[in-house]
Each structure stands twice: as C-alpha cells, then as structure tokens.
C-alpha cells in the first residue's frame, strides 16, 4: 500500500535541469530592489538615520481614549509635514503625562531644521487652549545618528565575521564546492530579503539587522540538510562508480523535500501569526523574516543544489582541459 508523501509527489521533477530559470528569478528581484534603492532609496528608520523627538506635556492624567485621541492628533501633525513616525512613547508621574513621538529624518540638516520648526509651531498652535504659553510644555529635539551609524557598521562586520566562520566549518564538514554554493546561496537570500524590504517600503531599524541574522541562520540550516543528503548520496554513488552530480542533487532534493516543506511551514506559521496579530512596529519586523523564509525555501531547493551541480560542471571541464594538455 503506497501512501502519498511530499517527496513522492516530486519524484520525477528535474529540479536541477531547469536551473537557468531558477537563477533568473532571484536575479530579477534583486535587480528590481537595487534599481528602487538607487532611485527612491530605502525606508531607513530613526535608529540609523537619526531624526527628532517631540514631546507634549499634559498637566493631568489622560484616560485611554484621551491618550489615543491626542496621540493621533500629534502623529497627524507630524505626517502632515511629510514625515514618518518611528516610535511613540509616554511618560507619566504625579504631575502629569507626556506624550513622546519620534520621527525619522527625510533630508539633510537644513531641510530638517525647517521641518522641525514647522512641526513645533503646529503643535503649539494646536494646543493653545491648554496653556497660555505652550512653548514650555512642547519640546522638540533633533536626535543625531552618529552613534547609530557606528552601530550599523559594527553589526555588519559582526555578521560578516560570523558568516565566514560558519562557512569555513561547512567547507570542512562537507566539500569545498558545497561550501561555496552555501556562501552564494546565503548572499542571494540576504539580497532578496533586502530587495523585497526595499520594494515594500518597510522601515529599516535595528530589528531588521536581527531579522537578517535570523534568516542567515535559517538558510544555512536548510542548506546543510540538503548538502547532508548530497554528501550521503555521493558516498553511495562512489560504491557504484557513477558520479553524476545532477542526478545526485535531484535525488537529494527529492528525499529532503518533505522535511523542507514541513520545517518551513512550521516556522512560517509562528511568524505569520506574529505578523497578523501584532502592532505595526512588530509587523515591520516580522515581514522581512517572512520574505527571508520564502527566499530560503526557494533557494535551498532551487538554487543551492543547482549551483553545486554547475560548479561541479566547471570543475569537470577544468579536468578535461588538463587531461588534454597532459596528452600533448
């Protein structure tokens, strides 16, 4: 009695054969992202771009409706000036409540000075009834990004260092062609993630860095599982003296297809729930991870093994050339 399984469903699919098409799709996405990044730029958030923080002080405790209403008034004033709100906070003690709103820079210092003054003026006008002299109770400060730029750089260095160490390990445990395929696949995944984030104009803050690292870890895991099968099948084919990279890769993909689908589904389930339920800032954090997961499952099936086959092909051609040279 034979039962359906995900693996048997793809029993006859030649994953590796159509690899030129598979390679094309990520290329298109990445190029699209690149073009957009050059033309419109990325939606860089306050953590890296710097911005301003403005606060309005209320001399009393605010009920939840009052708080929300005022918060909306303030954020609308910010948006009316062509700015995006990054975070909102509140601070309250016996003397009253303060609503703080942070937004990101959209231009250089001169542009922002004008905008900041405009926002402050608008807020003072809005809350004229509250105070005789609003200016004391409404503050506006520009927050620099120097510390954050440094942080970004150090984070990138840390990520690259971690990735290098991981890939050296893979190179040792598997073969160097697998290691190389893993590197390229990893870079592709991250680029797709960044490209999609740029295309969908999602704000990039410190949590995005964490999302990138998560996806790096995830895609390396997926890659390892498939290359583990390839490693095993190479040993099997050595016994029968037949080294056909394409066939080995295809079989490896088919064998681990069930696991790949199930694992990605389970992780996707958790993160999608988060993306659906949560506040906008958490949604912004969850979406890039979802992009990365989808990119990950795609590349671990269609890109990494196919790369391995292509690289083996190049190696094979090199060997043939050497043989013919030797004969002469």
């Amino acid at each position: 009695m034979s039962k359906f399984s995900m693996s048997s469903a793809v029993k006859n699919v030649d994953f590796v054969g159509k690899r030129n098409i598979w390679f094309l799709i990520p290329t298109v996405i990445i190029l699209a992202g690149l073009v957009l990044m050059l033309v419109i730029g990325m939606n860089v958030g306050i953590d890296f771009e710097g911005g301003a923080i403005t606060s309005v002080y209320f001399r009393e405790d605010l009920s939840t409706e009052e708080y929300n209403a005022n918060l909306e008034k303030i954020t609308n004033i910010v948006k009316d000036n062509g700015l995006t709100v990054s975070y909102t906070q509140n601070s309250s003690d016996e003397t009253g409540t303060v609503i703080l709103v942070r937004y990101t820079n959209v231009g250089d210092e001169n542009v922002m000075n004008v905008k900041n003054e405009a926002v402050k003026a608008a807020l003072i006008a809005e809350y004229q009834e509250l105070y005789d002299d609003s200016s004391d109770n409404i503050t506006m400060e520009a927050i620099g990004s120097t510390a954050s730029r440094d942080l970004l750089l150090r984070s990138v260095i840390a990520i690259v260092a971690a990735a290098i160490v991981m890939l050296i390990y893979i190179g040792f445990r598997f073969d160097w062609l697998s290691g190389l395929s893993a590197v390229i696949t990893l870079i592709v995944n991250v680029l797709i993630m960044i490209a999609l984030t740029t295309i969908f104009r999602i704000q990039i803050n410190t949590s995005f860095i964490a999302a990138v690292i998560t996806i790096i870890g995830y895609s390396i895991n997926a890659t390892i599982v498939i290359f583990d099968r390839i490693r095993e099948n190479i040993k099997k084919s050595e016994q029968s003296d037949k080294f056909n990279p394409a066939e080995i890769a295809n079989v490896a993909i088919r064998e681990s297809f069930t696991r790949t689908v199930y694992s990605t589904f389970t992780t996707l389930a958790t993160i999608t729930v988060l993306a659906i339920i949560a506040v906008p800032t958490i949604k912004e954090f969850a979406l890039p991870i979802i992009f990365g997961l989808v990119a990950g499952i795609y590349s671990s099936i269609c890109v990494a093994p196919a790369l391995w086959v292509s690289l083996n092909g190049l190696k094979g051609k090199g060997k043939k050339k050497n043989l013919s040279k030797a004969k002469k």
Partner: protein
Amino acid sequence: MSKTKSIIILSILALLIVFMSFITVVPLNKGELGIYDFESIVGYIKLGFDLEGGVYVVYDVEPLDENDEVTDANLDATVLRLQTLLQNKGYSEGTVAVQTDVSGNKHIRVEVPDVQDPEDLLNLLGNPAEMAFVAGGHEEDYKEEGNEEYILLTGTDVDTAFVTVDSNNLYAVALKFNETGKEKFAVATTNIANGTAGYSTISIIVDGETISTASVSEAITGGEAVISTSGGFEYTQAEQLAMRIASGAFNVKLKTNQSGEVSSTLGESALRQALIAGAIGIGIVMIFMLVVYRKLGLIADIALLIYVLLYMLCMAIFPWVQLTLPGIAGIILSMGMVVDANIIIFERMRDEYAGNPGKSLDGTIFPQGFRKSYAAIIDSNVTTLLGAIILWVVGTGAIVGFAMTLVIGVVLSFVTAIFITKALLNLFLPLGKKNPRAYGLTTREGVGL
C-alpha cells in the same frame, strides 16, 4: 523498560511539566502564600527598551571651563564614555544619543530599559563626579576657579574604576588610566620620586572634596593606582566612589535636565501580543506534528513544551540576558531548529520503515532513524552556535542580546533533539501496541538512488 516503569516515569514527568508551566507564567502574590512573594519565571526575564520601557535622563552639556565651547569631538567622546559606563555596569541595552533643540543647544539623552532600581541608575548617571589629581599642598589653589596650574591628571585620563582590596586588606578603589593618563601619571610620580617635583604627595579631589592624599615613593608606570583611606572604605562607600569616578571621566560638565520613567517604544501591548502570537504559533505547530506524525508527533510536542519551559528558565536565570524584539527573533529561530531536528529524525525513520517494512520498530527503525539524522542535526546546530558566539563576542548593543538568546536556544535545541526526544520515545514504547501506523510510519514510494 517495563510498562509499569514507563507509566510511573511519564506520570512524574507530566506532573513536573504542569508544575513548571504553572510557575513559569503565574506569579504568586503575597497574600496567597503568607510571607512569600514570587514573581513568575517569565516575570524575572529582563526586558529591553522596546518591550518594557525604562528610565531616561536628559543632560545639559556644558564645557568644563566657562570660556570654552563644547565641541562635537567632546560630545562624541562623552557619548562613548557614557556607553562604556553603561556597558560596564551591566546595562548593555542602554542607549546614548545627542539631541539638539531648535535653538541649537545640545543635550545628551540616555535611555536604559527595565531597570530594577531606577534610583541606582540615576545615582550612577545623575551625579558624574569631577575628579582631579592635584599636586600635594596645592589643593586650595586647584579649588580656585580656573586655576589649572597644579592639576596633574583629570577624570578624562581615567579608563575605569572599581572596588578592590589594598595591601592592608581594606576596601579601596582601583583606577586604571588610559594611554595619556598612564604617561602623565608616570611623569608625575617620577618627578616626585627623584625629588624634582617640588611636592611630595598627590591629592585626589572629587567634586571639590579631598578624598585622599597619597605619598609617592616610586615612579608608577603601569598605569594603575589605588585610592585608599586610613581605616579603609566601607564596601558601599568604595563602590559609590568607584561608580562616581567612572562616571566622572568626562571632559564636559553634565547637568541633569530631565529624568524619569518612560514607556516602551513598541507600545504597551507589544509584549503581550508577541506572547499570544507565540502561543498560537506553537499551538499550530503542535497540532501539525500530531496530525502528521501521530505518536511521534506527540513525543515531539512534549519535547517542544519541555524546551520552551527550559528556555524561559534559562532566560530568567542568566542575569546578563535581556529580551528585546530582536531577541524574540532568536527564540523563533531556535524553536524552528528544534522542530526541524525532530522532523529530520522522523522523516529518516519513515525512510527506514519504507525500505524495510518488516523490521522491528525499537530494534532497527527508530535507532537507525536517529543514527542517520545525527550528522545533519549536529552540523546545523554547531554552525548556528559558531555564528551566534562570533556575534556575541564581536557585536555591540542589540546584536549582543540577540546573540545570547540564540546561544541559549541552540544549546537547548541540541539537547532536546538528541536526548529528550530519544528518552521520551523510549518511555512511550512500552505503552500500547508497536503499531507502525500509530507512530506515523507509512510505506511509500522510495525516491532514492
């Protein structure tokens, strides 16, 4: 293992899990148990600024000398020192930033999340000490405004300060100078030692008060010094002084403009939503495993539950771990790895069964399934662990918190996948029939070579 033994152990395990789940999420309030007042385990986990909010301080920045101006370089250096100070005192998720108001005045904003005792932090930050090493006998000259003639070193030459024990076994404060400080100190002590200085002691003055006067007998070139007082400091005194010196190592004057507590940047409900989403997500995963792998799925679910409980425990126990939104990403990744490991194992078992339907479950199929999955599981866990360790060591700020969460997650996932799943399987085997289909094993088309 006999059936009875299985049942007993499983029952104990069940009770343990229920108990752990309970104390993980439910705090015990004073009233209910008399004197004791326990927070739930989850309550002990330190949260980052994005999830919990915390304490903030805004400083006015003024030049040390009234006639000078505060330069950008000064500001940058001060920001760096504040960051180092926060890091050294365990507030690794604290942030420091420069603000400019519309009139062009510069301020420094410090935000630190989830502080146990805001008073402590405000003391640390709110009272930066102004420190100077002054030539002995000229203390009054120094205290006159603007008289720099007898200042040998200032707070800016100090790298760090901490409590130590001096040669009489009394509490004292140890100072480490930075490169410039080391040189200056070497020069000063050399001059005293060979009598060319004109004074024979060095006084340490903090905030206008002479803390101690040290006689110098030889040149000190090592860049370290110990401040002790006759009779020794009390531990808390020494600690306070060390903190204030460390925070006083600034080349500007910091005056507290505002301070207070502030809410999280992600909003009040962010954490609660994340937890609910997490619970729902885990629920979906558990149902999925149960449907697809049946009894094996049940085992994986129990293992996952144990994993989550252990994870929460570790997060609460290790004091330097702070949970932020990026940290949640780390948790999601590690959980994905645990589930993934179990799926790998079960799929291998299915492969074994499909190839040899007649073989015994506990004799061949299950052990072979485990054996063949080890390579992949070990490789993926080690790789991720290596990456996380590098991030921990090389990274800064939020990355470090994320890395720590990931390290804990990977280690636990390794233990869970290799040991706990196997142990649970061994416990379940004696119960019920060894029916392959009950374990989610099916015959199916092979796809191998």
